[in-house]
């Protein structure tokens, strides 16, 4: 897939991730429904497959899950720069995509955390702080479940694949109810997929 991004598109990408950073209460993963709307549905900067693969690979790789944002940016840059096959330009554009999304995703939340940390630590027992935390809790739970749902469901146009849903449901039950190491699950999922069973 190729796409073309001009200067204003890059700015839009950066500003949208700045906004997502401020909204990412409960972790960046809770903003993935909004990212999907932005990157796949509205602008077609990523295919649905690339979007899902970015999250899957970041889960499979070591490191914080926030790196899925780096991979999305990298893939947006790949699509815009013609891929790694086009040489230095392709690498640079992919790298630029990664830097833009990660900077956007991290600058507001990190600055806010830095400034608010001591205040928050001292005022944990304040009614307003607790009301915010407790009031947001049901939404955080819902956003996590909705993220899983959207990853399985894909965009509105994609067909409903019962075997994909079955794999997702089984892994959900296993993670929920057992202490099996996540790597076994991810490995099994990849293997089943490679054999064409998902």
């Amino acid at each position, binding site marked *: 897939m190729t796409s073309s991004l001009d200067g204003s598109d890059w700015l839009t990408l950066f500003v949208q991730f700045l*906004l997502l950073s401020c909204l*990412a*209460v*409960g972790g*960046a993963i809770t903003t993935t*429904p909004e990212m999907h709307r932005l990157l796949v549905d509205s602008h077609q900067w990523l295919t649905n*497959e690339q979007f*899902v*693969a970015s999250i*899957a*690979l970041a*889960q*499979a*790789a*070591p490191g*914080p899950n*926030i790196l899925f944002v*780096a*991979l999305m940016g*990298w893939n947006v840059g790949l699509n815009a720069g013609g891929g790694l096959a086009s040489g230095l330009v392709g690498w640079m554009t992919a790298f630029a995509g990664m830097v833009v999304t990660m900077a956007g*995703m991290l600058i507001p*939340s*990190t600055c806010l*955390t830095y400034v608010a940390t001591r205040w928050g630590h001292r005022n*944990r027992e304040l*009614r307003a702080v*607790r*009301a*915010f935390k*407790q*009031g*947001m*809790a*049901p*939404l955080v*739970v*819902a*956003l996590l*479940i909705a*993220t*899983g*749902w959207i990853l*399985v469901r894909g965009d509105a146009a994609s067909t409903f694949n019962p075997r*994909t*849903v079955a*794999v997702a449901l089984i892994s*959900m039950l*296993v*993670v929920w109810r057992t202490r099996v190491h996540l*790597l076994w*699950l*991810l490995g099994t*999922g*990849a*293997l*089943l*997929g490679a*054999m*064409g*069973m998902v």
Partner: protein
Amino acid sequence: MPPPALTRPATARPRSLGELYWAFTLLALQGFGGVLAVVQRELVERRRWLTPDEFIEDWAVAQILPGPNVVNLTVMLGDRYFGWRGSAAAFAGVLSLPSIVVIAMAVALENVADTAAGQGALRGLGAVAAGLITATGLKLMPALRSNPVGYRPALAVTCLTFAAVGVLRLPLPWVLAVLGTSACAWAWFRLKPSDERRAAPQQPEAPTP
């Protein structure tokens, strides 16, 4: 309710910015499918930079604030030991090498991803990842039992939010503005001012660097 504050202070602290950087790098590189469990094992159990109690409290604050929780926690801890330079070192530790690793994996798998088997493997991984994330949400559900608005109303808010975001695909800012504000206001109303004192065990402030 959190357990009562432990009297044992954290027995160690990082001696240098370099140690802080490498501690967070090693910790991040061990975290497959998320880093939280490794943070607890490395910083509390192995290095003893934090007591279990401090960890729980810091984690709560990292979660209240927007942004990736682990990065928030990293920034908070780095600041406590070495001020803004500590934040920068810990931030760089948790993100720099792991970013390179994940991009290297993406590049290495790029050609593989064009084959039918590669496509299938990524689809399989995606399905499992979807299950992992959903399970994380389900695991948090029991925590709603102690919610000040009550368990059933909290679940109702969860269902409404899921319908708005997952089914109707409404933009997140609107959902957070309408449902989030209502839920926070409701929680504020239900939390009595008299609860403030016993909400948290009294604990001395962490020493400022």
